[in-house]
């Protein structure tokens, strides 16, 4: 099965799902960051220009900081997100899903020198397209990756009806599918809701509207309502 998720199982048997971010969202975040930094630099140049040579020196220092420290400082202190990444809902994490720390962040930002070759991010682009978790060379060396941090908005509240116990045991996946159905039913047409409920006639023994109602009752039982 094809997916973009990197699944990590902890020692406690909990599986963490990291949704790797690919070349397109990352490029968008980078362009946004570039624009932000450019605007910031231009605005800062206005007061600095009246200081003559001293102002020029400070401007050079500012440019250096914007080029090299911006990524590291934002990633470590802003929860793995530069402003561009935050706007796009991306986050830098370690390959095992933990928050990114100083050393890997410094390494991945320093290695932009390689990824930017030959001046237009050609190496980085090819690397993100080829790698299964869309990491550029800096990410591979530093042991980090960029993931999607934003979740879809949750579905509607499951309507409260009197709970009905399930006639037989269901696995966790199957229970989750039932709850999903009840939560997302509002986004579907009525015909589609009935079509889906009719698939479970072996479970409910009913069809159409009655089947929907019974499934929602089962979900109420699964959610632990009275």
């Amino acid at each position, binding site marked *: 099965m094809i997916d973009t998720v990197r699944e990590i199982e902890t020692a406690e048997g909990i599986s963490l799902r990291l949704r790797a971010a690919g070349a397109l969202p990352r490029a968008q975040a980078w362009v946004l960051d570039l624009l932000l930094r450019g605007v910031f630099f231009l605005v800062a140049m206005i007061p600095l220009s009246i200081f003559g040579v001293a102002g020029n020196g400070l401007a050079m220092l500012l440019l250096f900081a914007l080029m090299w420290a911006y990524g590291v400082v934002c990633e470590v202190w802003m929860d793995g997100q530069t402003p561009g990444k935050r706007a796009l809902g991306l986050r830098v994490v370690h390959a095992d899903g933990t928050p990114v720390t100083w050393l890997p962040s410094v390494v991945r930002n320093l290695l932009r020198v390689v990824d930017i070759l030959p001046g237009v991010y050609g190496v980085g682009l090819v690397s993100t397209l080829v790698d299964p978790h869309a990491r550029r060379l800096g990410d591979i060396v530093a042991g980090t990756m960029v993931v999607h941090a934003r979740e879809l908005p949750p579905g509607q509240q499951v309507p409260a009806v009197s709970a009905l116990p399930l006639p037989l045991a269901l696995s966790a*996946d199957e229970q989750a599918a039932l709850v999903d159905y009840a939560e997302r039913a509002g986004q579907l047409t009525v015909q589609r809701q009935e079509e889906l409920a009719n698939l479970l006639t072996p479970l409910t023994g009913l069809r159409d509207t009655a089947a929907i109602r019974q499934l929602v009752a089962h979900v109420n039982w699964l959610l632990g309502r009275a």
Partner: protein
Amino acid sequence: MELERIGVVLRPRVTREALDLGAAMLRAHARPVWSAWFAFTLPLFVLCNGLGVALGWPWLGWGLMWWLKPLFDRLPLYVLSRAVFDQAPGWRQTLRGQARWPWRRTLAALTWLRIDSNRALRLPLDLLEGSTRAQRSARWKVLRRRLVGETSLLTYFCLLFELVLFLSVWLFALLLIPHEWRPQSLIELVRGDTQVIPTAWVLAGAGVAYLAMSVIEPLYVACGFALYLNRRTQLEAWDIDLAFRRLRARLQGTALLAVALLCFGAWTPPAQAQATAEVHAAAVDKPASVSLDALFGARAEAPEPGLAQAAARAYRDPRFGGEHTVRRWQLKYKPEPAATSINPLFPWLGHLLGGFFQLLLWLLLIGVLGGLVWLGWRWRGRWLVRDEEVASALSPPISSIVDAPAALPADLAGAARALWQAQRRREALALLYRGCVEQTARELRQPPAADATEAHWLRQARAIDDPQRSRRVIEIVRTWQFAAYAGRYPDDATVEQLLAGWPAQPGAST
């Protein structure tokens, strides 16, 4: 369309995440996509550029290849749409399949819809759904909602990616090809000295642009297709549909084989941990210091007459010696330092800052040197790792792995007995336990549980209605536990007793 055969993980995704699914699909089916792509586009590339050269407009090939993109988009979409639900078609099949797809919408995309930033999303709707005009416009209204911005961004960034790849090839060529190997016409081209660009360079540019397009255009189509899949998953809850279908199949008892596979999929043995202990076994020989004389056998000073002649010849080469005539432009007058229009407010501030940062740099240097000295003092005498430390860090190897096949044999009791009599007692009991567990799950109509422990099955056994069956399950599980965790095996008679009757022989009445 059979949803059960879909080859991607369906779940409602954030739109941007759906784009990444497109890249993942393309990566998984790279070979069929690109073989079909090149089989179709390469002849057209040659044809277009040939036409351009013949007509005397070398740029025509470049422009035509760009204009024909919507036509080429059909190939990746054909391969991916088939590969997601079924087998990926070969390139011959893909080319033949084009005849069966509607052409009218492709003509529209090639003419009045050519500059359309939503092409990636329009493609699957036009080519895969095949509906009438009224239906299509209604569908398009539903599909594009909340997606238009992302689709346009996808188009612009794919264009940007093409530009990046195109420029990368030329910049790498400029960086890596030595100066004297560069053709004169290219240098003039880069400097902008020539008015008319030679045809050869236009063709080379078209070739590189074609390669960049070949990389990015399938990605564009795949991302559009993934957006389409994600939108339909949202609108029609495909993931729930799939889960319900699986549940239905399980309830109807047709998926018993799949259940068995899933239940015991976790049983495949882990690869034996190969502990290699010879990390530091081979001691590194230190090279003894050898003088040049000892190495070559003779004094290196006495030069041969041939060598002197060769050196003289080498110096006559214009690259090593002689005179060069260098022509370059030079300014006649020294440029005056540009006077700043604004007088600096604090002229002394520059000196102050300069002095401050210089002091900072000296302090940094002192700090680094001091740190190095301190580190050397602190870690003195600890540079070598002793052998026993390495040996103690290695764990003992894991032994006695049960080698179990994924599927259970039809005659469980017979297979287990054969293993037992062949003195593979552990494997025999493992097989019996697996069979017993599967029968218990089937008896209780329970879902497969790959992570269930022995204790879980002991608890489950009490839920079986038939007290005799319940007792037998407990016996088998306990026997297996004793064997697996304590190495205590039962005698032959006990095993025979366990192999008779219900769980080992599913057809038996008791």
